[in-house]
């Protein structure tokens, strides 16, 4: 038998259960009843394509902050629902980071239909940063529709991820200086936002294709 083939077969057959490894992280951090309830959520969400890592992280966050079991389980369930909606909108090929950002956008009030439209328009480009910027703008008080449309508008211009982050920072600065949140996003969209100066000329990493 060929050693290379044998090694390959062993690697393929190795027991790999990332979800189980994730759930093990709860041991000693939450009580048994809470752990069982979280495992049930992780288990049922898996069939919807929801990864275990963010759900377990949410439970650990609750444990660290001293929340009771019921509150932890409720938070994990809510997150699982958001991630499930994001998965349905982004499709089965979406990466975990993209999914987490999508879940945050959904929770912020961006409609899954809008996220689905974005995915249809950009089927192969990573949407993690655009979705994260949408959620961050809403968290600063920008209405969800305005945040979503602003980011989508910039994407149509073919901006880089770093430029979307610069846009968010500009809006945050304007809000901190007293501008109304919705108005700040609209004004920044009209007047432009500082582009990243650290990227070398001709670097087109993360650049989204310009679409009509």
């Amino acid at each position, binding site marked *: *038998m*060929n*050693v*290379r083939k*044998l*090694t390959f077969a*062993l690697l393929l*057959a*190795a*027991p790999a*259960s990332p*979800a*189980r490894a994730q759930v093990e992280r709860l041991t000693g951090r939450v009580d048994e009843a809470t752990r069982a309830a979280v*495992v049930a959520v992780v*288990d049922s969400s*898996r*069939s*919807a*394509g929801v*990864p275990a890592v963010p759900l377990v*992280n*949410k439970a650990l*966050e609750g444990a*660290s*902050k001293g*929340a009771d079991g019921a*509150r932890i389980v409720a*938070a994990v369930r*809510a997150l699982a629902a958001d991630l499930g909606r994001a*998965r349905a909108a982004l499709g*089965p090929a*979406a*990466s*975990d*980071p*993209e*999914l*987490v*950002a999508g879940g*945050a956008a959904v*929770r*912020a009030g961006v409609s899954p239909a809008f996220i689905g439209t974005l995915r249809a328009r950009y089927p192969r480009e*990573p949407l*993690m*940063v655009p979705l*994260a*910027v949408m*959620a*961050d703008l*809403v*968290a*600063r008080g920008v209405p969800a529709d305005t945040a979503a449309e602003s980011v989508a508008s910039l994407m149509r211009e073919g901006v880089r*991820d*770093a430029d979307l*982050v610069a846009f*968010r920072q500009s809006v*945050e600065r304007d809000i901190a200086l007293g501008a109304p949140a919705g108005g700040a996003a609209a004004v920044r969209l009209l007047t432009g936002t500082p582009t990243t100066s*650290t*990227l070398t000329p001709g670097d087109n*990493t993360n650049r989204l294709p310009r679409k009509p």
Partner: protein
Amino acid sequence: MTGPGDDPLIARLAAELRRAPVARPGFDARVMAAVRRAPASLPSRAWTWLREERTLALSPLGGAAMAAVLAGVVIAGVWGAGRLSPAGSGPAPASPVAAAPSVVTFVLVAPQARSVALAGDFDGWDGSRLPMRRGTAGIWTVNVPLAPGRYDYAFVVDGRRFVADPAAPPATGDDFGRPTSVVTVGGGAARAAGGSL
């Protein structure tokens, strides 16, 4: 209202700490050239050995034993996965983002604090794994390598008080009644996060 973060000197120091490091042009090329010049390491030689074709002679008994071990490993793997997910398989698993981690510098200005630690999705909200180092004028910092993604986090001051990062976006929703911030790490340059208490 004024705070330690409003002091211009402290603000300048904190801003400098938050600035992402930029490698000099050609640095990557010089490092890679040096790596190529270096003699092959033990792991490299081992990898070469593993990739070479070899013929392995097995007796029928040895072959049967090997098959039994393989079958056991497969069954254990399927059983382990199935125990967590009896509902069956869902859509194809998400592909991991293959990108090198970026080093993110977290900064908090807290002159009165006796200890500050970072807790977040990246350390299982442990609160003790990422202690921050106190610097000049009560500026606490810690560098954390993070893979691309979106992470919730908070500062833990004096071992018990959760403090959000005033310089970072707040997390959407308030699941546990304690402040939480968010950092998004893209696939490109390092990004800094931080604020003052």
